[in-house]
């Protein structure tokens, strides 16, 4: 049996919808604060996977200079909106990577922060 071919047959296509972006930034200035960027609004910021905004932050928490910033769309968006967002965002913040956030058949394809 060709198991690779069998595996490929089981693929299931899903309805994909762009709903936001995770932007990873490097900064030495502590927990960043953001304005809204067009249709993108910051939902949370995490450091080493621990949510540091909004909510309680242990005064002992070890933070490094690398933050994940989740921006969710406040209206329907397209890929071009992400490009515009990054142009504006990059003028102030030094970002290292971006991950688009999609829903698949309506289910979130991204984890929440602890």
């Amino acid at each position, binding site marked *: 049996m060709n198991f690779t071919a069998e595996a490929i047959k089981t693929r299931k296509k899903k309805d994909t919808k762009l709903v936001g972006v995770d932007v990873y930034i490097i900064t030495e200035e502590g927990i960043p604060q953001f304005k809204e960027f067009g249709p993108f609004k910051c939902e949370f910021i995490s450091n080493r996977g621990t949510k540091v905004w909004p909510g309680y932050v*242990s005064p002992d928490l*070890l933070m490094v200079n690398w933050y994940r910033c989740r921006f969710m769309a406040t209206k329907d968006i397209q890929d071009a909106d992400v490009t515009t967002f990054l142009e504006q965002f990059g003028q102030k913040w030094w970002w290292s990577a971006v991950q688009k956030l999609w829903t698949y058949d309506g289910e979130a394809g991204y984890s929440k922060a602890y």
Partner: protein
Amino acid sequence: MAKHIITMIPGEGTGPEICEAVRMVIDASGVDIKWEYEDIGLDCLDKHGTLLPDKTIQSIAKNKVALKGPTTTPVGTGHKSANVTLRKVFDLYANVRPAKLIPVVKRPWDHIDILNFRENTEDCYAAIEHMVSDEVAQCLKVITWPGSYRIADFAFQWAKTHGRKKVFCVHKANIMKMTDGLFMDAFKEAAKKYPDIETGDVIVDNCCMQLVRNPAQFDCLVLPNLYGDILTDLCAGLVGGLGFAPGANVGDNCAIFEAVHGSAPKYAGLKKVNPSAVLISGIMMLRWLKEEQAANLIEKSMFAVLDEKKHVTYDVGGTAKTDEYAQAIVDKMGVMAGK
């Protein structure tokens, strides 16, 4: 005012009955403790709309020490782990999991006394996961220099103050050269501060094989989060199972003591399960609080009850209920203390 105020989090499933048994034993030791009971887990979702209520967070933040029963985490889907949330919120970066033979529990080895130091906040537990296409999932493995250095430094310091001789780093840096390589580099840097302690490293798969063939060769192990999670269960199996596997989650200003095992919901309310893992976690807690005399009394009494085999739980060949086993330990403590 009590000498110690400790947050007690009974948890879910068999947690409440285990914690009651453990409290009975610790209270009988005579240590002056006021227990503050707080909630965690699925029940809190209905009551408070969150797995980890603010009241619980505030109690731990105030008291700095907690004893916690097990909680339930669904596999694959559903809510986040309450345990991981707790460790993250308080930055409890050192998960200390001893694996030491209990003298009377049936096992294939004559000597095992391993101290595992599991980094508790990073690695694949950073909760950074994405479906990057409709058929590809990705999890970021986050390893940082300061996070790696401090767990190694913590382990060396613990080893030094507890008379341990060897500290080894467990990794897979031959494959994950950046992440595990960074973890090992930080370990080696921290090791320079402790020239009197023998150090080395071992690849995680080889470490597993060595542990089941010759566990006596290991003393202290320092591991990234995921390997630590897996290897400490392996070590628990070597010393009698999860019923005897304690743990401490330690940060710079706070510590939460809990068993390695889960909540065993199918046994909830039956008073059947062995509370020893939480009790040994409680003994670790008493030593953390510098209540060495009470810790030793409980430990010796527990060993004696296990040795007699008259009042032990089903997993070690007995028929005693959870609270009957605890009462037997309390009775033995009375005899040993000359009461």
